[in-house]
């Protein structure tokens, strides 16, 4: 069993530092009426004629919801598309694990939903740290996503009349979430995957399996291609294109333990960042309230229990501290339904950041349950009594089974025990309204961009955003750039490609030649512990300073002490992991700097120095209503902070109350 060494901080603790850059005033956002912005913007975008589309090459990296939907749609339009995935099939991306559902402002329920309300809920849910133009567009295209997915044959849940069913999700007082039992992500991803396979069959898209991006090639501020490694043969190749789209997901695995898949990593976006792409709000990390608690050090990942469970499950702890009675023996009067008490308007369906912090608070107060005291109950007994087993099985059957397999306890008999865990990253590459990074021709879509969720994402909005970007936004906006690239000849025989390839080979060589004694996972666990302790559910200046020096020190040790067996030539999973963890170690530092610099609390980012007496986030709109876009300066240099001011013309940022 690997031991986690407690990191020792050097006696002199350097504060995280950065340099102030310029304000970002160009984000390609249209102006005027909010409702007409996207339509007018589309009308003003340059077009590429069909005969020219055939001559333009696009690289898409990643085939999750965003990547697969984008690649398929670009193929349908007639572009030449190359898709690179590190999986052994494009159907395996982690979007497949999304459980609960996808939001859309269809108002099929007649419960008062509208594009405006979805827009408002999303921007409020993000604690007013996202762009109005982007979020409104997201709500607007949400409607078309459901239409398209139904046309693809995705078997959404239906009512007896044959029409689509919906349910509620956190942060909304409406039922706008479409779902396919507890496997909505799987069904939507398989829809996008199938559309992609159709384009493969038609010859418009080529998919390269088992290929991982190791660098982005940039020349004169424009993306020219990528460096990829064939994970089976170890071959390193240069690939040129007229535009590069990164759809490589989030970086929650920086924390080692998260609900992400084991291979999910930040390498693509981090390499792009090192080549000049700004990184937006890196410390905005969503910690999901309902996960199965950690049970030991051997544990390789944490498992999410869908937010949809909070539709019918009630969260509680015993009113008496240290109450060790089995939960069913605790009478109702001695149960503390703290969410229902603290937030009567939303109850168990408060947004994720609020629910996570509340769970931490009751556990910190000593009311936690289970062997470690770091868990709360999620109880279905009332719902089972009210609706019967059959109905509850229809809604959550697979989740109940999964919980029982992992814990050996049946949620039919005893409440689930849950605790928050890292789940999603709102931060990511900075992009403008066209989803283009500050490097021309380099796009980031889905969770890989910093996007539309501000400081907290609402449940069932990740699927919506991934598919909005891939099906309905990027295919329009990318043409605006490509129309200017018609005469560009593609070549991999340039200095920029040669440099990128050389650096990649050096990085691999360095890792293989470090004849250390400690495994990659040992370092990764250490990094995860630092980030979870100091840059997790709650942050403070002192802790962040400590974390900064700990990560610095860990990174130095990594390049001296890590042990990577095997060679580059051939299938080497240890080397793959070592490259990813090397990038997490650099990204971790930027996350710390970002969390340190933002001296306010907002959404997921709770700075303990800035909270109300009740422990709610205390936002500071005067000084921090901006996107923090960080620019890389080098391994030893402090990054430069560019601020993109957020202005609110249509909504008034208010204290975000769910009471």
């Amino acid at each position, binding site marked *: 069993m690997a031991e986690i060494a407690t990191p020792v901080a050097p006696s002199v603790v350097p504060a995280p530092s950065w340099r102030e850059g310029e304000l970002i005033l160009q984000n390609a956002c249209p102006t005027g009426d909010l409702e007409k912005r996207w339509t007018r913007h589309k009308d003003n975008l340059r077009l590429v004629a069909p005969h020219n589309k055939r001559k333009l090459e696009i690289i898409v990296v990643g085939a999750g919801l965003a990547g697969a939907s984008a690649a398929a749609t670009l193929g349908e339009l007639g572009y030449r598309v190359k898709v690179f995935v590190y999986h052994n099939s494009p159907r395996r991306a982690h979007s497949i*694990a999304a459980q609960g559902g996808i939001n859309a402002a269809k108002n099929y329920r007649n419960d008062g939903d509208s594009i405006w309300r979805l827009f408002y809920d999303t921007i409020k849910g993000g604690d007013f740290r996202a762009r109005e133009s982007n979020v409104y567009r997201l709500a607007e295209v949400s409607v078309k996503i459901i*239409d398209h997915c139904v*046309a693809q044959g995705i*078997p959404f849940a239906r009512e007896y009349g044959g029409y689509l069913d919906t349910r509620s999700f956190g942060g909304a007082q409406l039922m706008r979430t479409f779902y396919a039992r507890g496997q909505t992500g799987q069904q939507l991803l398989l829809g996008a995957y*199938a559309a992609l396979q159709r384009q493969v*069959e038609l010859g418009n898209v080529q998919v390269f*399996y088992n290929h991982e991006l190791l660098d982005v090639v940039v020349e004169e501020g424009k993306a020219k291609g990528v460096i990829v490694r064939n994970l089976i043969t170890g071959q390193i190749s240069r690939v040129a294109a007229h535009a590069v789209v990164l759809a490589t997901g989030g970086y929650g695995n920086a924390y080692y333990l998260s609900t992400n898949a084991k291979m999910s990593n930040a390498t693509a976006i981090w390499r792009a960042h090192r080549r000049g792409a700004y990184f937006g709000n890196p410390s905005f990390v969503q910690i999901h309230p309902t996960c199965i608690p950690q049970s030991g050090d051997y544990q390789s990942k944490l498992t999410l229990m869908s937010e949809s469970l909070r539709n019918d499950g009630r969260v509680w702890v015993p009113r008496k501290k240290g109450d060790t009675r089995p939960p069913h023996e605790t009478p109702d009067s001695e149960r503390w339904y703290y969410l229902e008490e603290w937030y009567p308007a939303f109850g168990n369906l408060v947004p994720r950041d609020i629910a996570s912090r509340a769970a931490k608070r009751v556990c910190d107060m000593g009311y936690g349950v289970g062997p470690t005291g770091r868990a709360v109950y999620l109880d279905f007994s009332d719902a089972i009594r009210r609706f019967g087993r059959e109905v509850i099985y229809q809604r959550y059957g697979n989740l109940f089974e999964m919980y029982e397999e992992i814990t050996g306890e049946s949620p039919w008999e005893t409440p689930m025990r849950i605790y928050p865990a890292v789940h999603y990253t709102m931060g990511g590459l900075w992009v403008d309204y066209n989803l283009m990074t500050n490097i021309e021709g380099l796009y980031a879509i889905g969770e890989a961009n910093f996007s539309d969720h501000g400081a907290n994402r609402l449940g069932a909005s990740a699927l919506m955003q991934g598919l909005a970007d891939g099906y309905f936004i990027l*295919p329009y906006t990318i043409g605006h750039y490509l129309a200017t690239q018609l005469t560009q000849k593609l070549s991999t025989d340039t200095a920029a490609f040669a440099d990128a390839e050389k650096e990649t080979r050096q990085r691999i060589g360095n890792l293989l030649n470090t004849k250390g004694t400690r495994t990659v996972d040992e370092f990764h666990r250490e990094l995860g512990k630092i980030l979870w302790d100091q840059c997790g559910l709650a942050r403070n200046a002192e802790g962040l300073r400590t974390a900064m020096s700990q990560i610095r020190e860990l990174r130095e040790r990594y390049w001296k002490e890590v042990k990577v067996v095997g060679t580059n030539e051939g299938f080497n999973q*240890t080397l793959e992991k070592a490259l990813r963890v090397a990038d997490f170690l650099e990204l971790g530092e930027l996350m710390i700097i970002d969390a340190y610099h933002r001296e306010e609390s907002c959404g997921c980012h709770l700075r303990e120095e800035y909270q109300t007496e009740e422990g709610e986030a205390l936002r500071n709109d005067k000084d921090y209503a901006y996107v923090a876009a960080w620019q890389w300066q080098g391994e030893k240099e402090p990054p430069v902070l560019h601020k993109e001011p957020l202005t609110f013309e249509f909504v008034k940022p208010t204290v975000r109350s769910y009471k």
Partner: protein
Amino acid sequence: MRFTLRVWRQKDAKSPGQFETYEVDGVPADASFLEMLDILNEKLIKEGKEPVAFDHDCREGICGSCGLFINGRAHGPLPNITTCRLYMRHFKDGDTITIEPFRARPFPVIKDLVVDRSALDRIIQKGGYISVNTGSAPDANSIPIAKAAADRAFDYATCIGCGACVAACKNASAMLFTSAKVAHLALLPQGQPERRERVKRMVAQMDAEGFGHCSNTGACAVECPAKIPLSAIARLQRDFIWANLTPDPYAR
């Protein structure tokens, strides 16, 4: 817990493979099967030996990456579960466990326990979709679908593409995999325009990849983590006969 592992080691597709025996100790009963292999690999790396290569990713039973043949069964001793959702408490302390890759001619070994399952994607390429371009869909509720039809279609649509059905089958048939997609789309109104062509082309590709024929033993459904019912195969057979033997009403 302590285990003796007999693990299939194979350098690459061209080299012959063999079993190697390893001892692994101090495994918690609540560790998953893959976490037990993580513990083995950490130990091997520390000893300067090559760790055992195996496929895995989501570790919650949905991505379909993991697939080990454990003690002679696809995904191990429990029915209808992925390897990542198998826990060591289901084994006895001191057990000897034999671990092999999924074996089938269309699944060549890449290394150790990792096999190439891209043949399954090529079957989907031949029609495992509805040909609709982005942007052309009507309003979602303009096509009412009976709840029972949607529910059945969902049951078939949950296939995770792990290939356990192939590994469990004595003929290495991909019938359960192929039929799950055929049945899913055949049950929905959206799937009707391409129904005839779909079943013909997907079955032809399944044969071309070298998968064997189905002899209805049902071994596949016992292991299938998505619990795809055997009725999928019956639905495919019916569609296949219909598509091949009844006259195409639109033939010239």
